[in-house]
């Protein structure tokens, strides 16, 4: 039977429910290997630039780049949940906050070394995320979006609560000392934190990639595309969805802990729902379902507000909003979608040649 790849079936499109998450799937077949080569080259160039950056830039820029990477890690976590598993979250700022508070409290109250706080923050966030994922199982689409949004709104208030004040210092927040580079490395603290973040970011990215390409990742994507069918194939959808929440929260929590160490200060006001909203914006701009998009999303939410402020102080919010909307017109499926289109075009040209 000859195969015609071109006919599309309308039923799926027609019945697609409002809550479904459209994700970017990168082009596969024919030219896949050449595309992969392009991507790999781009990745290596980016990595070299990333390694060289701190020796070229001033400390302020290094700090900004570090924050960009941190947001990137958080967005990567969100991408696992939303892009890969198809669950919305407008509340990932909450996990970021939990990670940050875990690190800060450990350092402030117990004098734990900052490096140790990262895995602990990750584990705590995993547990919190997993537990939140349980009730979230019952919710879909907008309902889940709102439940997570509620989480984002409530979390800063919880950190203010008087019974926890002994630990959290309430509204006054916690000040953290900036760590020096270890082993006598000839790096200043900003450079050291940058490289630390870069290393963790790379590890996080590699793990995410492995995960997506594995049995687990396929199960997560199957749930995203068709939960009932996934269940019928033996995927324990409840467990996997909760685990996806947990892993996603773990990523974001580690990012939060890093953020606390780099900013050297946390307070409930650091983690309002605007943070969650920013993470979603970064996710969409980078490309839902496309893992490297996290980096670009991080760059967007880190630098674009500053550009907006340069353009107009009084109306910086309006400018930022306008840029966001224009981005969505230009690349409605994010940078990942744009890249997909570009690569498809490219591979087609090479095919015809």
């Amino acid at each position, binding site marked *: 039977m000859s195969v015609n790849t071109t006919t599309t079936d309308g039923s799926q499109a027609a019945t697609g429910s409002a809550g479904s998450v459209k994700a970017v799937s990168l082009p596969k077949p024919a030219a896949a290997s050449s595309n992969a080569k392009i991507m790999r080259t781009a990745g290596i160039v980016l990595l070299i630039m990333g390694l060289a950056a701190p020796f070229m830039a*001033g400390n302020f820029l290094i700090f900004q780049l570090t924050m960009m990477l941190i947001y990137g890690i958080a967005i990567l976590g969100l991408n696992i949940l939303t892009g890969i598993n198809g669950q919305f979250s407008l509340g990932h700022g909450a996990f970021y906050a939990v990670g940050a508070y875990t690190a800060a409290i450990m350092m402030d109250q117990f004098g734990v070394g900052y490096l140790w706080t990262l895995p602990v923050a990750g584990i705590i966030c995993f547990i919190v995320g997993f537990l939140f994922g349980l009730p979230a199982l019952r919710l879909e689409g907008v309902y889940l979006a709102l439940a997570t949004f509620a989480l984002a709104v409530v979390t800063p208030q919880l950190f203010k609560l008087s019974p926890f004040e002994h630990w959290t210092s*309430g*509204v006054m927040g916690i000040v953290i000392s900036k760590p020096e580079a270890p082993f006598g490395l000839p790096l200043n603290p900003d450079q050291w934190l940058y490289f630390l973040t870069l290393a963790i970011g790379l590890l996080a990215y590699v793990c995410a990639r492995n995960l997506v390409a594995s049995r687990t990742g396929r199960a997560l994507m199957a749930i995203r595309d068709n939960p009932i069918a996934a269940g019928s194939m033996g995927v324990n959808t409840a467990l996997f969805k909760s685990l996806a929440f947990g892993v996603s929260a773990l990523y974001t929590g580690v990012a939060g802990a890093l953020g606390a160490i780099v900013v*050297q200060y946390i307070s409930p006001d650091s983690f309002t729902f605007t943070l969650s909203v920013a993470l979603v914006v970064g996710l969409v701009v980078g490309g839902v379902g496309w893992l490297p998009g996290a980096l670009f999303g991080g760059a967007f939410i880190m630098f674009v507000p500053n550009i907006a*402020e340069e353009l107009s102080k009084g109306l910086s919010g309006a400018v930022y909003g306008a840029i966001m909307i224009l981005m969505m017109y230009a690349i409605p499926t994010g940078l990942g979608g744009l890249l997909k289109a570009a690569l498809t075009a490219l591979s087609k040209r090479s095919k015809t040649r």
Partner: protein
Amino acid sequence: MHMRRNILKYVGAGLVVSSSLAFASISQAADMPGVTDTEIKIGNIAPYSGPASAYSTIAKTISAYFDKVNEEGGINGRKVNFLSYDDGYSPPKAVEQARKLVESDEALLIFQSLGTPSNSAIEKYMNMKKVPQLLVATGATKFGDPENFPWTMGWQPNYQSEGIIYGRWIAAEMPDAKIAVMYQNDDFGKDLLNGLKTGLGDKADMVIAEASYEVAEPVVDSQVVKLKASGADVFISFSTPKFAAQGIKKAHEIGWDATQIVANVSNSVGAVLTPAGLEASEGLISTAYLKDMQDPQWADDQGVKDWNAFMDKYYADGDKLSSFTTYGYSVAQTMVHILEQAGDDLTRENVLKQAASMKDVTLPLFLPGMSMNTSDTDYFPIEQMQLMKFNGERWENFGEIISGEVGGN
């Protein structure tokens, strides 16, 4: 705790003394970041966006005031280049902006950065970098701690002293009162509440009911109803303008016949009492250190006239009803005073030194008899306030000018 603080104090004081000696010699080297022969770069961080954007009026007023200063020739011939950045009331963003101002723009100092969280976030960095963080826009008591943070200084009367003033006054005037307090659940509300209890001293149990609210809440009706039910006859509202207005209005509606006190930040006739209803506001008690522009008693005051002229010319679309404009106007004048005092020696060290050696400095919009004083150990420029009562039309000051005495010792 007390022991430790004392020790720190001595150590800190020693450091300040020795370092200020050191500054004296360095300052001759004319190492003056942010300063050229024609310009002084002053940094500022304010929430132009986000939930606290109402406060951006202050920075806008300051900017307008520096326009005026520049137009009139600048400070000792140097124009002020006022770099004001948005942090959206987010501490991480404040850190970023502070680093930008210090490392990238190389501003001489950061002035009037707004909000307790944002200032807390940058305090350590500023002191490490030895860049003045002057006249910060918050009344949190922590920003007057020269032992530990010699580069950070506040301006307005701190919230705790204000609370103490109310406490003392109630303890003296209404010893049998039953007090109900509504407060904003943040450092501002809590500092005021703590101050109140300190001021009440051993009569702290006069406070029979407390109810907090979150800035995120749309209305505080429930809190007011709950507090009235406690049977209190004094209703204190440590709230920001919107909630203070709601509180006054609601208390009036439910016929709560209590003596009402509102915090200084919320005593603007135009921005609080008018929305709440002037009738409902009658009998209100508060404190002040600045003149209220809407108050008819100052109609002929020169300072007020100057302010009006300034607003008309330099900040025409500014809201004259807002007390933030008088605040910004006055704090900018303070900054100009400090820079003028520093003369041509505009090193960070000298500017800080000038800020920490104000002697009886008074401002046009201060209530009569008030002045600013600072020293190496006193980082609270304004510590005086006067109680006042609203007569349904305007505020009437009463009693002495009172000094709060939290800071400085």
